[in-house]
C-alpha cells in the first residue's frame, strides 16, 4: 500500500518557506507539502474552524512548526494539537531560527518530537532538511491514523 505522506509546514516567512521547501525537495522525500502561514491557519487546517470542518483536511504525516508566528505562536499551536485526540500523535518538528533554552524546554514540554535550529548556511540547512525527511518520513514508524482505521472497518 502506497501511502501518501504529507508535511504540514507552518511558516510565516516566505523566504524560509521557499528555502525549506527547496531543501526538502532536494532530497525528493516529500510528496505533498501543505503550507500555512500563521498559527491560526495551522489550527484551522488541523482542527477546523468548527467541529463540522474537523475532518475535511487530511491529517499530515509530519508537522514542521516555526515558533515565531503571527496571531497564534508555535508553542500555542503545539499545545492545542497535543490536546486534541486526533492530532496528539502527529510528530511535530520545531524548526526555528533561535535556539533559546526557554524555547527548547517549552517545546519539549508541550510534546514536540524534535527541536531543530535553522542554520544560516544554506548547505547546512539542506542537510538538516534532508535529515528530517529521511528520519521522520522514511525511517520512523507511525501509529496508523484514524482514516486508515476507518477504512479497515
Amino acid at each position, binding site marked *: 500500500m502506497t501511502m501518501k505522506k504529507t508535511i504540514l509546514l507552518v511558516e510565516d*516567512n516566505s*523566504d*524560509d518557506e521557499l*528555502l525549506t521547501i*527547496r531543501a526538502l525537495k532536494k532530497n525528493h522525500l516529500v510528496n505533498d507539502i501543505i503550507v500555512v502561514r500563521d498559527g491560526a491557519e495551522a489550527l484551522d487546517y488541523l482542527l477546523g474552524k468548527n467541529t463540522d470542518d474537523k475532518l475535511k483536511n487530511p491529517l499530515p504525516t509530519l508537522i514542521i512548526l516555526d*515558533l*515565531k508566528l503571527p496571531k497564534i505562536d508555535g508553542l500555542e499551536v503545539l499545545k492545542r494539537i497535543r490536546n486534541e485526540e486526533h492530532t496528539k500523535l502527529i510528530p511535530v518538528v520545531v524548526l*526555528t*531560527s*533561535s*535556539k*533559546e533554552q526557554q524555547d527548547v524546554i517549552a517545546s519539549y514540554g508541550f510534546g514536540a518530537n524534535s527541536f531543530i535550529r*535553522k*542554520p*544560516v*548556511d*544554506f*548547505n547546512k*540547512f539542506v542537510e538538516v532538511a534532508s535529515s528530517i525527511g529521511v528520519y521522520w518520513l522514511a525511517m520512523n514508524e507511525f501509529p496508523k491514523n484514524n482514516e486508515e482505521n476507518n477504512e479497515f472497518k
Partner: protein
Amino acid sequence: MKSVNDWINANVITLLFVVFLLILFSKPQYSQTEVPNPVVFGSDSNFPPYEFLDENGKPAGFNIDLMKAIADEMEFKVEFKLGSWADIKNEFENKETIHVSDMFYSAERDMKFDYAIPHEVTYDKIFIHKGNREIFSISDLANKNVAVYASSTLEEYLITNYPKINLISVPSEQDALILLSEGNCDAAIVSDIIQNEGISKLKNNNLIVIGRPLFPREFSFVVKKGNNRLLKLINVGMVRLKENGKFNELHKNWFTTQKESWISNNLVLIISILVGIVILFVIINISLRALVRRKTKELEFANSRLKLISNVKAARIDKYSAQEQIAELLNYIKDTFKVNACIVRIIEGKELKLWGSVGIKKKNLIESFAINEGVGGKIISTKKAIRIKNIIKEKSHADSAKFYPNLYEFVSYAGAPLFIEDKIIGIIGIYSEKIEYEFSEIDLEHLQIVANQIAISIENSTLFEQNTKQKELLIEHIASRQKAEETLKASEEKFKLAFHTSPDSININRLEDGIFVEINDGFTSITGYNREDVIGKSSLEINIWENAEDRAKLVAGLKTHGIYPNLEVKFRMKDGRIITGLMSSSIISLNNVLHILSITRNITEIKKAQNELRISEIRFRTAFENSAVGMCLTGTDGQFLQVNAKMCQILGYYAPELLSLTFQQITHPDDISVSSDFIIGLLKNQNESINFEKRYLKKNGDIILAEVSSSLLSDKNNNQLYFITHLIDITERKRVEEEIRNLNEELELRVIERTAQLEATNKELESFSYSISHDLRAPLRSIDGFSQAILEDYYDLLDTQGKNFLNRIRSSAQMMARLIDDMLKLSRVTRSSINFAKVNLSEIAESIKNELQVQDIDRKIQFIIAPNMIDIADPNLIRAAIYNILENAWKFTSKKNESKIEFGKIDSNGKSSYFISDNGAGFNMKYSNKLFSPFQRLHQQNEFAGTGIGLATVQRIIHRHYGKVWAEGNVDSGATFYFTLNSQSEV
C-alpha cells in the same frame, strides 16, 4: 523584882490572847473537862519559900498562898499535898489524884504539861566552899561532884549540856547546900529563890557564890495536858490577882517581909538571950547595955548591908531603864555606905568609861580615862579593892594630882573592881566628904560583894540583851550567809561557765605588773597564746601590746576610775598579726591583791568592714553623683528621696525642687497609668526590675522621652524600701533613630523602584536578544540561502567573479550569524541567574577535549588535564568559560605539528589559580590589555577565525565567580591563561 513583874505584866495580855485562842480552838473533849472538886495541888514539901511544911506540919509558902488566893478568887476548892518532889511529880504525871503542880519551864516538860502564866523567874547559882581555888565557873565543874535538886529542870539541863559533871541528886535544894556545907561535894547549884533561905539554915556559912547566874527559868503552875478548864481558871485568877494588887502583896509578904521577920526573929532570940543575961547580970554589969547597944547597932548595920546586897542582887538591869535603875541602885549604895557619891565605870577598850554616878555634878565628871591611870588603874592592876583615907594627900603627890582633878570636894575613897569570873569589867568607887573618914575592911568586903553583884547585873543585862539580839542576828546572819553562799556558788558557776565559754577574750592580770593570772578559751582562740604561754608572764613580756603606752593609759584610767570601758587597742598576736580589740577593763580584788579583769572583743574585721563600707559608700555615692545617667531613689509612694546631678540636668530642676515632688507629678499625663502599672508589677514582686520608655515634663514644660530602669529594694525582712531608678534621656536618640528609619524606608523604596527598572530593562534586553536570535538570523539565512540558490540554479549564467561575489555574500552572512550567536552568548552570561555548586573542573575539561577532538579527529594534540580539580562554580557558566579558553588553545595550536594543551592548578600565597597553557601562536604582551575586550582580536580573520567575543565572555564569567582572569604569552611561543574562582566564599 519590879522588872520581873513588868515582864509578867507585859506578857499577860499576849498570854491571855493565846489562852483565849486556845480555848476557842481547842478540841471539844478538852474544853469539856470538868474542874475537879476539890482541886489537889501537889508539890515539894521542902522548897521554901514557895512551898514547905511549917513547924506545925501545915503547907506554907508563896505558891501555897498564891494558889489559895486564886482558888478564892475563882471560887473553887483547893487542897494541898506536899511531899518528896520526885514522888509528887511522879504522882502528878501518872495519877489523877493531883491536878495542879508548879514547875520550872522546859521545852521537854511543855510537851507533857500545860503551863500557866509564869509568876516567877529564877536563876541558879554555883556555890562552893570558901577558899576553894579550883572552881571559878561552871566550866570548872567537869568531873566534880555537884549537888542538885533531884528531878528539877536544872538537873535535866545539866545532864544535857554538861554531861561531864558528876551530879548528886538530892531531895531538896536545901539538902544540896547542906551537903556542900558539910564538905560532901565540891559544889552545889541552887536557885536564887532558895539560897538566902538555905544559907540562913546552915550551921556555919562557909559557902560563897561564884560565876555568873545560870539558866534563867520561868516558874509556873502546871496542869496536865488538856486540862484546859483548870488552866484557864488559874490563868484568869492570876491575872485578876495581878490587877487587884493581891499578887504583889503576897509576893511582898514572902520575899520582903519574910526576911524582915527572919531578922526580927533573930532579934527576938538575941533579945531574949540578952534579957536572960540582963536578968542574970543586970546588977553586975550595967555597961553591958552599951555593949548590947553597940552589938545591936552592928547587927543593924549588918542587916542593912545584907539588905543592900540582897537588893543589889535582886536588881536586874535591862536596857530600857538602865540609867534610872542604876541611879536608884547607886543611891541605895550611897545611902547604905553613908557616903556622898558613888561612881561606876566600865572598861571599854583601853579606857574606863563612866557608866553611872550619883552625888557628883555631871560637869565635874570625867567621861573616861585610861585604865592604867590613877586609882582606877591601881584597882585594875592589883585586882583588889582599895581604900584611901585622904585623897587630898594623895593629890599632893605631883604625879597623882592629875588623876583626881575633879574630886576636890571629896576626902575619902573606897573602890573595888567589878569582876565577872576573874575578869575585871569595871570599877565602883564611893566617896566621902568627911575628913579622915576611914573605910573599914568590912566596908571594903561589902563593897566588893556589891561590886560583884553589880558586875553580874551589868553583865547579865548586857548579855541578856546581847544574847537575844545576837541570837537573832546570828540566825539572820547564818540564813543570809547561807543564802549568799548559795547565790555566790550559783553565780560563781554561772560566771565560771561564762568566763570559759565566752568567745570574747577574758583575762585577769595583776594590776601592779601585768602578770597574767587567768585567761579563758576566747583569749587563746583570738591571740593564739595558750595558758602555758602567758600565765605567770606579764603582758609586756609577751609583747602583746602594739603600743606599750596603751597599757600605761589603761592602768592610769583604772587607777582613777576603777573601770575603763571600750578602749580601742591594737594587740600583737602570737603569730605577729596585729588586731584591733575593743577592751573593757575593771579593777577587781583577788585575795586582797588588785587585778585587772579585761574583756576584749576582736573588732578587726568589724573595723575593716566598717572602713570598707565607708569606702564603698563613698565610691557608690561618687558613682551615684557623677553617673552619666540620671539616678534617683524614690519612695514606694513615688516621692523622690535622692537625685543625682544628671537627673536634675535631664529634668531641668534643682535637686531640692525634685525632692519635694513625686515622679507622678513630672510624668507626662498620658504615661502616668503605664508607669503605675509597671510600679505595681514591681511592688507585687512580679518583676525584679522593669525597663520601659516614658515621657517626662521638664520644668520648662519641654517633653522628653526617657528610658527608665527601675528596681525595688527591700530589706532582709522583705520590707519594701524604695525604688532605685536609672533614667536616660533618649529624646535625641529617638529623633535620630526616626530619621534613620525614614531614610531606610526611602532607600528601600528607591531600591524597589530601581529593581523594578532593572527588571524591566532586563526583560527588554531579554526580548531584545530573543528578537535578535530569531529575527536577525532570518534575513541572513535568506541572504545565504538565496545566494546559494543563485549559485545552484544560475551557475552557468554567472562568471567566476559573480560566483565569487555570491560566495563572499554567503560567508559574510554566516560570519554575521556567528557574531550574533556569540553576542547572544555574552549577553546570556550577564543575564542568566547563577547557581553555584560543587563541580569537577577536570571532568568538564575532559568532556570538552572529547568534543573538540570529535570536530577534528585527525589532529594530534597532547592534552594534559590535572585530575580532580574540584571547586565551587556555576556548572554551565564555568563550562562555557573553560570551553572558550580550550577552544582558543585548540584553534591557536592548529598550525603546530605537535600541539600541547595543559590544564592545571598552581598554588601561590595560599591561593589557587587555574591555568590553561598551550604552545600555539601566542600573542604580544603589548596588547594583553585588549585580550578580554569584546570584538578585539589579535589575529587576522584569515589567520585564525573568530568573533573576538569569546575571551570577553570568559572574563565576564570569571568576574561573576568573583575571580580574576589574566594571560601571559609571547608571539609563536604559546599563551597561558590564568583564572581564579572565589565563589567558595559566596556560597
